[in-house]
């Protein structure tokens, strides 16, 4: 079991080593692509094991939880790893055309796979300190990917990115230390029980809020999202696609994990705070997008507003709310990464991402226009694309709780999303090119066409399939949400049923003593 779990985690490390050794040869990118494919393969093996057996867990070195470090995959974790694998393959292929030889020689592919390793580790670990380690791996490899281009603009973005994320990491580490001091354990399943025995519940809430702020920076929620719009438009398109797809989602994932598995003692506080954070994130993010005039900057601000929807689903803390959050996560990774990949093609054939300086893509590159419309309208929540179902579920979940203002905000933000997506459409696609250029896809060489367009086509097809056949994916997401709200299966898998039964009776007694 541990090998099924650790294969998608360890494979990128091996790929990274080989890719680094071959960074100056043509083989480097093929190593990267093969490694990405193997990573996706391992992720698919993992998800089939999870589908087969339910939540699976294992521990490293034979030291059982809570003493050693445990890895675990429930439906959500496994699905996130698969999506990571998909984005990995798409971007690895795209980088064939997007990444220059000199950047490859600096170790681009190694850093890329180390980033994938960090992301995968974060989705699979069942240990809070180990999660911190994966956050560090992600942070430092993403820093490398940000500065690898070496321009002043990129380094400026990278400095802001790394400083603010470092602050978040320090908060996270402080929180881990405090929580360990209160409970004496780091395993997340063990923490589920251990926190229930903490006497000073108020202090536990303070520590919980500390985690919320730390993960909030990672997830880029209001008012902690500064680093994202400061850096996402600067690096290569491959890098911004993989960042846009995955990085903030690790933060959202960590929020979901922490507040469904560990900090469930003070739901009133947590849900209220998350709810307002969600609404403000949606609104400020989408208004930020409305103020931009660059393809990638608009997309970057949209990430923030969409994170708001995911946090909203979590804040509702109902089965339907969490279904919405998980559906949103999975749909959004595909759509957002794809939009960034498309912006890269637009940059190549139309000569930029500043909307005022490009145009004519609708007339001259109709295929790209269609491929843009699919993720763009999906992001804006138009049916029958994947984003519609995600939005529909979240809005229905808030209406069911009679949260009128929240539902209204979510709908209104959807409208503003349409507004700024059509801005890209109208200016980059409909408006003729200001220099009367004809931005045809044939401006790409055959090699580059294949490397850039096939990932875009594949991701667009996935968006359409999720949109047309949501019924296929829904039961999976429903189970994922159920496992989050009722983590018995997760606890059993990580700690073993006997330990869970013992812990439950201990907590039960503690509650009885408290009652007396």
């Amino acid at each position, binding site marked *: 079991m541990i090998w099924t779990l650790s294969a998608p985690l360890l494979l990128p490390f091996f790929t990274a080593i080989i890719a680094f050794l071959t960074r100056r040869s043509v083989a480097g990118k093929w190593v990267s692509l093969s490694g990405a494919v193997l990573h996706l393969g391992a992720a698919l093996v993992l998800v089939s094991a999870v589908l087969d057996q339910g939540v699976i867990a294992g521990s490293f070195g034979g030291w059982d939880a809570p003493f050693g470090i445990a890895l675990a995959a429930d439906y959500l974790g496994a699905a996130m790893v698969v999506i990571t694998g998909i984005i990995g393959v798409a971007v690895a292929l795209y980088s064939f055309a997007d990444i220059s030889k000199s950047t490859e020689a600096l170790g681009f592919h190694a850093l890329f796979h180390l980033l994938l390793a960090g992301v995968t580790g974060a989705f699979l670990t069942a240990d809070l300190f180990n999660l911190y380690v994966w956050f*560090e791996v992600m942070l430092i490899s993403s820093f490398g990917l940000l500065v690898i281009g070496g321009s002043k603009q990129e*380094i400026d973005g990278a400095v802001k990115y790394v*400083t603010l994320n470092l602050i978040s990491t320090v908060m996270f580490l402080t929180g881990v230390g405090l929580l360990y001091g209160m409970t004496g354990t780091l395993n997340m399943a063990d923490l589920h029980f251990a926190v229930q025995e*903490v006497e000073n519940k108020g*202090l536990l809430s303070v520590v919980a809020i500390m985690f919320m702020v730390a993960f909030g920076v990672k997830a880029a929620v209001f008012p902690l999202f*500064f680093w994202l719009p400061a850096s996402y438009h600067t690096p290569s398109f491959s890098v911004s696609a993989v960042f846009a797809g995955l990085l903030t989602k690790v933060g959202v994932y960590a929020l979901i994990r922490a507040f469904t598995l560990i900090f469930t003692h*003070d739901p009133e506080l947590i849900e209220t705070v998350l709810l307002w954070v969600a609404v403000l994130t949606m609104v400020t993010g989408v208004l930020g997008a409305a103020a931009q005039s660059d393809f990638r900057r608009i997309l970057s601000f949209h990430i923030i507003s969409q994170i708001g929807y995911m946090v909203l689903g979590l804040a509702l803390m109902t089965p339907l709310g969490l279904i919405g959050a998980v559906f949103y996560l999975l749909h959004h990774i595909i759509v957002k990464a794809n939009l960034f990949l498309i912006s890269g093609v637009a940059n190549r054939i139309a000569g930029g991402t500043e909307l005022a300086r490009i145009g004519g893509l609708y007339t001259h590159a109709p295929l790209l226009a269609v491929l843009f419309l699919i993720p763009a309208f999906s992001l804006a929540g138009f049916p029958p694309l994947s984003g519609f179902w995600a939005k529909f579920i979240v809005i229905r979940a808030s209406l069911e709780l009679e949260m*009128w203002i929240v539902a209204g905000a979510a709908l209104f933000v959807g409208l503003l999303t349409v*507004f700024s997506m059509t801005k890209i459409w109208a200016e980059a696609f409909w408006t003729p090119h200001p220099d009367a250029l004809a931005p045809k896809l044939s401006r790409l060489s055959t090699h580059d066409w294949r490397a850039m367009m096939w990932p875009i086509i594949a991701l667009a097809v996935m968006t359409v399939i999720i949109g047309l056949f*949501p019924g296929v994916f829904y039961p999976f997401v429903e189970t994922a949400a159920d496992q989050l709200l009722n983590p018995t299966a997760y606890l059993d898998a990580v700690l073993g049923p006997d330990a869970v039964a013992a812990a439950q009776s201990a907590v039960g007694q503690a509650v009885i003593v408290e009652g007396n």
Partner: protein
Amino acid sequence: MGATSENPHQTGFLTAWVPVVLAAAIFAFFAGMIGDVSAGLAPEWSWAWLPGLDVALAFRVDGLALTFCLLISGIGTLIMLYASSYLNGHPEYGRFALYLFSFMLAMLGVVLADDIIALFVFWELTTITSYLLIGFNNAEAKARRNALQALFLTGAGALALLAGLILLASIAGSTRISEIVQVEGLTEHRWFTGTLILILLGAFTKSAQIPFHFWLPNAMAAPTPVSAFLHSATMVKAGVYLLARFHPAFADTSLWIWSLTLAGAATAVWASILALRQTDLKQALAYTTLMALGTLTLFLGQSDAYAMTGFITFLIVHSLYKAALFMVVGAIDHETGTREVAQLGGLGRLMPVTALAAALAALSMAGLPPLLGFIGKELLYAGALDAISAPVLVTAAALAANALMVAVAGIVALRPFWRGGVEALPKTPHEAPWQMLAGPVILAALGLIFGLAPSLLQDTLVAPTVAGLLGTPDMAKTLTLWHGVNLPLLLSGATLALGAAIYALHGSVRAFLITTLSRLPAFDNGWDVLINGLKRFAAALTAIIQTGDLRDYMRWTFLTLLVALVATGLLRNAFLWHFDLSDMSFAVAAILIITALAAVTATRATSRLMVVIAIGVVGVGVALIFITFGAPDVAITQLLVETLSVILVATVMLKLPRLYEGGTNPFRAGHALIAVALGGTMTLIMMGVVQGPLDLRLTEFFEQSAWVDAYGRNIVNVILVDFRALDTFGEIAVVAIAGIAAYALLRATSYHKKGEEK
């Protein structure tokens, strides 16, 4: 717009004909269902789309749906045929046909859907295809703006509709429309008012009721076949369709009756007045469409059998004559190169077939016997007199709107053909190709045929639809040209007289309208104000948040943490304010004071060297604390790291610019306050944590197993390399990655510099 035969982009045979044939096949399919539906059956089909949320792709064909389907696919066929000639040779005709056909399918989906979510999905698909079609002349800024306006307004309405439909399904406990409308007590639910308002918002924006009407005339930026099909005969009627669909459930509430009556009456009258003002034929027609939509809404606010029969008859009448007239105007534009009323005249001799079709359609529009328009108008007057809301108001509104329609019919469809004195035209007019004539002729002729033989419609479409609207069969009134002399007939006479008078005076009326209306604020300008305001607000807000200065970002991040921790601590009474510090030794206190002083010095230092030294002292102080508490190994590590960082930073420093220009260091009170407050809060939290019992399960396990199971004497080492080996692996990876990143950064910047030098 149009193209001549020497155009190299001759539209291919298949591109031109496949949509026409497919649309005709769809029409034939629905025509084949007339028998079943008129017999009272309602064929259904469904597929579980998202069973987890009770969403089904469910279709149901009843009288109302079938009437719409026949209009959509029938007019659709003629429009596709028309467009293949109208846009013949356009390089993007393939895309155009695709959008238009997709629209037709989406529209069919709207009227056939029995599941509310399926209805919404198709509803939005009509919005998207409409957006692409209005912006079809994408190089024109006006087309892009108007496309966005339509998308934004109908999109906003659609979001309200979505919320309304979700609530409605929740109230009714079903997602099937055919079941929802039969649920008892729907209107007594406490959510009902809000739900109905949301649904009405969706319907009113789509069907362009006041105050959401202004997008529709702007949508005429689309090519004429689009205007004829979407923005007159079909899509804009989706809102009306929705109202009709929910009529059985809501029609007896006063909210329904009054909002439909008032919005419909205001739209009908106001639009008729504006129609008279226009000098562009297409714009004039656009406003008459608004009038028709207002009239249909007005009558859906009533529940009388006459009103319902009048509604469905007028719906059919309007679709027939309006599509015909739009195609006629398109043909005039195509053949003469202008749509300006003042320039056109005497086309009757040059384009006789077009003129005949236009005359028939215009007579139907004016409501003259023996055309179907006359029957429709009579029924509407009968319905108005029995109106449930305010018969006088409804009748007056209908009379005013109809009279104005008579005048507009004369201006739009008679004057260009029969008025003498032709001015020089951009092109020499001749009859349009047969593909462009077929539509107007067939549709106009149907107005006459149905007028002469209304029984063709009576049992096939009208009766089943009225039965659906009222919920009981056999209520439909008879369609006939002669009802005897009664009040509706007198009203018809008055309408004609009034209309003729307005027509005679329309020149001066128009001049009066233009001067008066130019003094009123226009809705369309309001839209620009709204959008610009939104942009400015967004820009201002974003400039406040995203300043571009890292120090601002850090300040807000720390402040957020501080506020969050303090607020939670106070709210949950988490902090312990009394701690016992009596066991603190003098040595520890001294270390703490020195460390704190060093930290303050670091913030106030004016040179980098001073900052580095001060931070070094802080690090050493921390190491000393570790030693005091019996962790010499940790202390050694700390000292090593500190020494190394001081050396590294000092080396790098030589290359850095001065810390503060001018050598003075402005003390930042705000920063200091945040730092001290955050430090104090962390101390409070720490004090709380250490006062709780320490759980030593893990420590005890490590102590016991380190030697016995893991064969190591140094517990810390065993933890690092065995118990938590994965962490150590990750941290080693971090160091290695930092190395790669540093290598990449240094090399990349030197590459970059080389590039600049070149």
